[in-house]
């Protein structure tokens, strides 16, 4: 029977976790600056923040990084606390499906702002 996973998967995930963290940290700082620069917040101002194409693309990359980061983080927790292999793999799959759904949904949300 084939092994599930391999010797390099852990290192790949370790790197992905840090790469996604760095992108999110940078995006959050830029977003906070834009938010503060926008002045008093209301619906039109809030929507205006998401109007430029760079915010849609950057925002979608943020959501993608967030979902990858969250999935890898939850995987670490499941490895520590969920010891049944079937249940653990089921949880990986369930969150992968949930998060892929979230990714598709976020495209719709971001591109709904014209």
């Amino acid at each position, binding site marked *: 029977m084939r092994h599930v996973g391999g010797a390099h998967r852990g290192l790949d995930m370790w790197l992905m976790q840090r790469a996604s963290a*760095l992108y999110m*940290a940078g995006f959050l700082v830029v977003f906070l600056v834009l938010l503060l620069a926008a002045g008093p917040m*209301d*619906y039109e101002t809030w929507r205006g923040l998401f109007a430029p194409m760079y915010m849609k693309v950057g925002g979608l990359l943020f959501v993608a990084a967030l979902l990858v980061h969250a*999935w890898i*983080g939850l995987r670490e*927790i499941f490895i520590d606390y969920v010891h049944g292999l079937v249940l653990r793999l089921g949880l990986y799959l369930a969150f992968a499906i949930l998060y892929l759904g979230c990714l598709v949904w*976020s495209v719709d949300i971001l591109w*709904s702002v014209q």
Partner: protein
Amino acid sequence: MNRQMNRKRPFFLNLLVIRLPIGGVVSILHRVSGAALSLLIPVLLYLLWRSLRSPADYAAVAGFFSGGFGWLIGLGLLWALLHHFLAGLRHLGFDFGLGEGRDRARQTAWLSLALAIALTGLIGLSTLSGGGA
């Protein structure tokens, strides 16, 4: 070190009994805040969707967070994000070999713990008096 010795090592992970050092406290809170934020991603996307959909939806989301129970939930989310962010920066520093000494590691542990709480408190106070930002 042979295998037999490894197998006899104590397995003692009850968090209610262990007296964690400050680095351990920051680390477990990093995990707890990360788990909470991960599980809440669909809710956060729902809030983003509502807030962008129409002025009435925006007002509903802003109204939920502006007072009472929703205000507390908002501060809880904010603390989770700030703690995870700051403790994460600290862990990234370790990856680059920064602040690995015991004293410096303890200092940055206290700093990230205190800063997340202080910033949450400050923003909480400012939204309490100013009626939301």
